[in-house]
């Protein structure tokens, strides 16, 4: 019976003009395009240099900045006001002002001041840009010092697990989480709601087919699709970004199935409370946004305010993104992930029992 119902589900999916394309096209696009787009690496920052010193040393500093891959020297001007105008027009992102007497004070007193002004409309660009600029300048001052006497502490940062600090490597495992959420959580739920809306669920309900069988028959096809797509995503990650899970594939798939169980339960709860597709879509959209923005997918949870961090504790996606990144980049095993795994298991039990209970109630 279950087998027959599943066959029927696949028939529906195949017959649908839109769904099969969506199921294949959407994840591939997502994996190919999004890691490049959703990238917090800041590049091509336009710098307007106000050089009021006209000395050898100030010229060298400007040169060094324009030589960096992060910066384009957009203009060199005499006055700060001129530079501000280019900032207004959007031709420059950051102004570096080298004051008069820069070289003199550097040589005489061993230190000098410069001014950095950044356009903070795009906060990330401004923040990262200023930080890069500062590091270039301190680099420069170190070079100068080397020529005289070596002083101070040299810091050599080492980025473990993602040595090149490649943001794409950070995004790829997280995007897989979104894929699984949509394919295994939202699609089957929408499918059930559509049967409600069309009225076919009534026709099934008067047959001896149990509700459990019916729902299982709805979920299993999407579980299968979810894992096929996940595998495709892993292959894309390998081929295009050269990223493979550092941890074992077994851990990877095992924990993915726990997460799938969580989102399926969540989808079922929504489907139980929705009578129309529109309603279900809206609720899902709402939760999807919250889940994504509060999961650490784009911005680290640690940099959120305390109260927001507490909210993220109730976001199952957060735990799975942590798991995926740890398994993928760090190669963590099950023992290192007990906290996240127990959270996910808790959500799985919660959502699925809620789904079962709310289903009974609506009988």
């Amino acid at each position, binding site marked *: 019976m279950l087998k027959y119902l599943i066959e029927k589900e696949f028939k529906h999916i195949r017959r*649908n003009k839109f769904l099969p394309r969506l199921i294949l096209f959407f994840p591939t696009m997502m994996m190919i395009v999004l890691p490049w787009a959703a990238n917090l690496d800041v590049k091509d920052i336009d710098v307007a240099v106000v050089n009021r010193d006209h000395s050898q040393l100030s010229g060298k500093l400007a040169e060094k900045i324009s030589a960096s891959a992060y910066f384009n020297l957009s203009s060199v001007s005499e006055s700060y006001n001129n530079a501000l105008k280019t900032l207004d027009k959007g031709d420059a992102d950051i102004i570096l002002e080298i004051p008069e007497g820069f070289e003199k004070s550097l040589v005489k007193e061993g230190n000098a001041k410069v001014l950095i002004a950044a356009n903070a409309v795009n906060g990330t660009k401004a923040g990262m840009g200023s930080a890069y600029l500062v590091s270039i300048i301190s680099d420069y001052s170190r070079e100068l010092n080397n020529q005289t006497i070596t002083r101070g502490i040299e810091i050599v940062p080492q980025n473990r697990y993602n040595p090149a600090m490649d943001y794409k490597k950070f995004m790829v495992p997280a995007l897989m989480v979104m894929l699984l959420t949509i394919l295994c959580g939202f699609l089957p739920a929408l499918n059930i709601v559509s049967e409600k809306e069309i009225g*076919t669920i*009534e026709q*099934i*309900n008067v047959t*001896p*087919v149990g509700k459990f069988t019916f729902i299982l028959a709805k979920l299993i096809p999407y579980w299968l699709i979810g894992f096929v797509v996940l595998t495709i995503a892993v292959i894309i990650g390998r081929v295009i970004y050269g990223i493979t899970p550092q941890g074992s594939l077994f851990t990877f798939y095992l924990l993915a199935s726990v997460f799938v169980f969580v989102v399926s339960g969540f989808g079922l709860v929504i489907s139980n409370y929705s009578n129309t597709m529109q309603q279900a879509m809206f609720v899902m959209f709402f939760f999807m946004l919250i889940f994504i923005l509060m999961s650490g997918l784009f911005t680290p949870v640690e940099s959120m305010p305390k109260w927001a961090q507490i909210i993220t504790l109730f976001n199952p996606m957060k735990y799975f993104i942590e798991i995926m990144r740890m398994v993928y980049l760090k190669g963590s095993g099950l023992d290192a992930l007990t906290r996240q795994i127990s959270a996910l298991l808790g959500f799985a039990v919660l959502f699925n029992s809620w789904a079962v209970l709310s289903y009974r109630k609506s009988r």
Partner: protein
Amino acid sequence: MYSVTADNLEISYGTVKALRGVSFQVSRGEMFGLIGPDGAGKTSLFRILTTLLLADAGSATVDGFDVVKDYKEIRGRVGYMPGKFSLYQDLSVEENLEFFATLFNTTIKENYHLIKDIYRHIEPFKTRKAGALSGGMKQKLALSCALIHKPSVLFLDEPTTGVDPVSRKEFWEMLKRLKQQNITIIVSTPYMDEAIICDRIALINEGKFMQIETPQNIISAFGKKLFAVTGDNMSRLLNDVREMDIVSSAFAFGDEHHVTLRNPMLDHTDIEAGLLEKGCSNIFVKEINAGIEDCYMALSQ
């Protein structure tokens, strides 16, 4: 043993009472008609009897099983055709039929004799998607699907609503033949003229049964002379008729008005005379036999 019984069923949606104490019994092999306008509570009653809805009060049995306790038993024994077409539009005619046969652990072949009469009308289109069928063909497919597991009780919720008159007639002919298979049929319809085919009918209004009788008894119990009135300007005519003292009731009824009188001694000439006095033209009055709808109107007053 009765095939279907209901005892004081009640249900309400919020403050709206959809059923206010409905009781009846239907014998095996009987065709039982539920006649009433939209919103009378017909669908709620069907949903309770097919175990899709829990009643607030009262009890019911189908095929001897309680609709609450033994709902699983009932689900294997009844066929239900909801008012709204609810088969899979993206599956073909044959796939739909096969699907429902499989859900009941049977095959098309096994019960083909039951649906043969109906299914052969749509069999030439069996590879067509159900969504692409005409209204009449959809009904036939839905009936075939409801019958494929040889149910002992068949529930048909407004099967002929939205179907053309020819298909409607055909549909009722099919039901008549099904009755010979000893299948109990409970059918609802807002078209009262169709009810005459049923063995017994229940007139239902605002969640209450007004009368349960054979169509013949309901009609013969009408007890009054009934007149059909036509003339120029029918809407004015209806007002004029209603204003007459001798008239007890008057309803627009298709292209004529049906009128009853207070005094059984008066007849059509009295109506004519009264209307001429009011200045109506082209008046034609004749005595007619009452139909189910006339009885319904008289009862629901």
